[in-house]
């Protein structure tokens, strides 16, 4: 088990390195000169000033040197300094991280809390009218773009009910009520498609499991349906859902980029967006690496949870 975890971690680090390389290269290829952009407000700058700024930002070094110094910094947790704010990227990320994580987790929670029962009901009432309607609803959930859902909610909640989210983001430990009032709608918009995916996946894996031999065995023991569904079928069919959630987490993290901006949530998603626009390489790089690390970590976690639930994996 520990060997498995270590092996997975090493693979994760390898992927992280690949991500870094990929993003680094792409960022350097993207047109748009960060130095010129920064000096856009200073008319009549001289070449000397341009060079000085480039040197200050470390952009005068060969790309390989820049890459190497970034990597060696990253290993020690130093992701460099933002071109824009001149703040350490690590610090900026740490400041922005909680909001994004919370949003992501809320969306996942929403998708699980709603998706799991829907999936189970659908599977139990397989092919019934209820099943068909729930399937239609969940497929519809995937079919509406989340940004669109978000905008509709914002606009019509305020027009019809005079409701709008609280103005200022508050971390959950600052003011839980405000925090949830802000997070509710984006989490809903973000979690809808994951919810649909969860219920679909659970439905199909549940259908498969309930037709398996061991469920028949459990039934032959005279176990009540509740026990059959929750203990045996449930645990067995939730396994692929975990994998799904791990992958969905990537989508949800991606989704924060748009939704955080729409909902004024100071998280990493909105940070990435501006930073790409502003060619703030260190921040983009830092954020993407961080997203990648979170994604890899979550999926590692999923695999470990999987191994905890499924003894067959634990010992292989």
């Amino acid at each position, binding site marked *: 088990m520990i060997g498995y975890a270590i092996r997975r971690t090493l693979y994760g680090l390898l992927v992280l390195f690949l991500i870094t390389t990929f993003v680094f290269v792409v960022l350097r290829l993207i047109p*748009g000169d960060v130095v010129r952009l920064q000096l856009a407000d200073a008319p009549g700058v001289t070449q000397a000033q341009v060079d000085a700024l480039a040197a200050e930002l470390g952009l005068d070094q060969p790309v390989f040197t820049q890459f190497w110094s970034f990597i060696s910094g990253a290993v020690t947790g130093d992701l460099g300094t933002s071109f824009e704010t001149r703040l350490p990227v690590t610090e900026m990320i740490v400041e922005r991280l909680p909001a994004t994580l919370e949003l992501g987790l809320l969306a996942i929670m929403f998708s699980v809390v709603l998706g799991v029962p829907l999936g189970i009901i659908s599977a139990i009432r397989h092919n019934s009218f209820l099943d068909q309607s729930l399937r239609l609803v969940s497929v519809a959930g995937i079919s509406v773009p989340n940004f669109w859902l978000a905008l509709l909610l914002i606009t019509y909640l305020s027009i019809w009910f005079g409701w709008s989210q609280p103005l200022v983001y508050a971390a959950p430990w600052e003011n839980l009520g405000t925090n949830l009032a802000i997070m509710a709608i984006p989490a809903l918009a973000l979690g809808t498609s994951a919810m649909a995916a969860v219920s679909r996946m659970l439905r199909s894996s549940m259908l498969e499991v309930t037709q398996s031999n061991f469920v028949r065995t459990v039934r032959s023991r005279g176990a009540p349906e509740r026990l059959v569904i929750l203990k045996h079928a449930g645990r067995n069919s939730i396994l692929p859902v975990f994998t799904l959630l791990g992958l969905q987490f990537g989508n949800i993290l991606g989704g924060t980029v748009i939704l955080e901006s729409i909902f004024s949530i100071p998280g990493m998603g909105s940070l990435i967006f501006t930073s790409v626009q502003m060619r703030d390489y260190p921040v983009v790089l830092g954020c993407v690496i961080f997203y990648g690390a979170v994604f890899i970590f979550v999926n590692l976690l999923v695999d470990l949870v999987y191994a905890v639930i499924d003894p067959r994996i634990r010992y292989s």
Partner: protein
Amino acid sequence: MSTARSRARLLIAGVAVVATTSACFGGAAGQSGSDSTDPSADQPQEDAGDPVAGGVLQMATPSDARSLDPHREASYNTHAAIGSVYSRLTAFKTGEDVEYGTTEVEGDLAEDWEANEDSTEWTFHLREGVTFHDKAPVNGREFTSADVLCTIERIQTLPGHQLGLISEVTDIAAPDDYTVTFTLASPNVDFDRVVANPFLVILPCEGTNEEFNLDTEAIGTGAFVLDEWSRDRERTLSANPDYFVEDRPYLDGYHVTIMPDAQSQTAALRSGKLQLMTGLSTDARAVDTLLSQVDGLRLRQEGGSTQTRVYLNVNEEPFDDLNVRRAVAHAIDREGMIEGLRAGGSLSGPVTPSFEGALSSEEVAELTPYDPELAKELLAEAGYPDGFSLEMKVTDGYGETVVKEAQWVQQDLAEVGIDVEIKIEDYATYYGDSWAQQNYVIAYGLQTPMLSADEYLTAEYLSDGGRNWNGVNDPKLDEMIQEQRTITDPVERDEKLQEIQRYIITEVSSPLSLYVYDGQTMISSDVQGYHPHPDYSSREYMNIWLVDGGE
């Protein structure tokens, strides 16, 4: 300032704002556009009564400052963020009875001031007993002339627009704690207006000595104390109890939320969570709808100064031909654009019409009437009877409205046979690689205001101008521009400036300035005393008060 206020998004708004060159009105700012204010909306509430103290104002802005350092950051966001925290020596007047955008100044930190005969030496007498905010490391100590010296000396070491403002200052001295003397290289009768520029806010020496971080902290002498700033989230300001203006501010404080999405802002306004929403540039219909939906909501429409433009690269075919450029100018239905796409605005020549020395909108309209037939003739004359095809670069960094305008222009041009394909670039690419590198043939974009007619002309139309990114190289024009700078008589100079602009419109015709659009502010019924100045400073917030003290 800019621009990007439409839904667009997202943090692109921030980009656009930073992108503005010199995002401030200088001392030379002129009258507000006469046609741009909606008289009914701007009227004071009739039964508002006398100002009462108390309450916290809730407002929102689409993007936040990247830094609070007024000398390192030139963006609107920075100046709006610290405008009520710091003070200047002088400040532009604002108020109910003061004309919007006046260039008249009043004392701020300076109680009074005088110049010598030829206006080369200016002496400012500072208020006594002014204290900084009670925050470490300044801790509420008294403001003295030393702080002015610290500030000016810092400016002289840093690049940026503010350096240009005081470039003529050769010496600065503080004979005593409450007197500061500036010596100028050349006469400047308007120097008291120069120091009213929000770039020249006075910092405490602790700040210039780096005892606190100017990027993230602001400790000044203004009406409001910056209690908390969390980047991209909010700014919390509270009334300065020791503010030197008596009975000000009325508010207990105000709170700014950063809301990048226009939809969210409107929703918050509609649900009463926001009381003031500035910098809108929405469609007239949207404004009307909003006004009808929310009781007591008022609109304040302010003449803008950001020009919409078509950039034509005169070094590239076919725009090396004046006739082609003129054809483009005649082909565009500019009044239609204002009507169809903006909530208000006025036609503009090379210099924003509200500036001294600018051509009036009426004259601009006369010089380049909308005339597709004429455009076709001009094209035929230039050897393009069947028109031609081109790629027009546009950035969505200025917001969705600009992209829409580009499409409008696209259809107008198509009607005279010019077939342009819109190529969207993100702001960084547009600015860094296309526009500033003259790497375009035709482009659509914005030009945020410069400081004066002179600056427009010298920066953009001199053959070696700093922002001459259109390839204009006209010796006669160079000569004319140089000449006007030597004219000391204001009237004569204005005439010369206007002559140059007529010449540009008819003989240079690149870039094509189309119009400036109005900005709108939505004010909820309980907010009174909001009389802003287009310098984007927030000093005037000290005059805002809430009906019933916000209760």
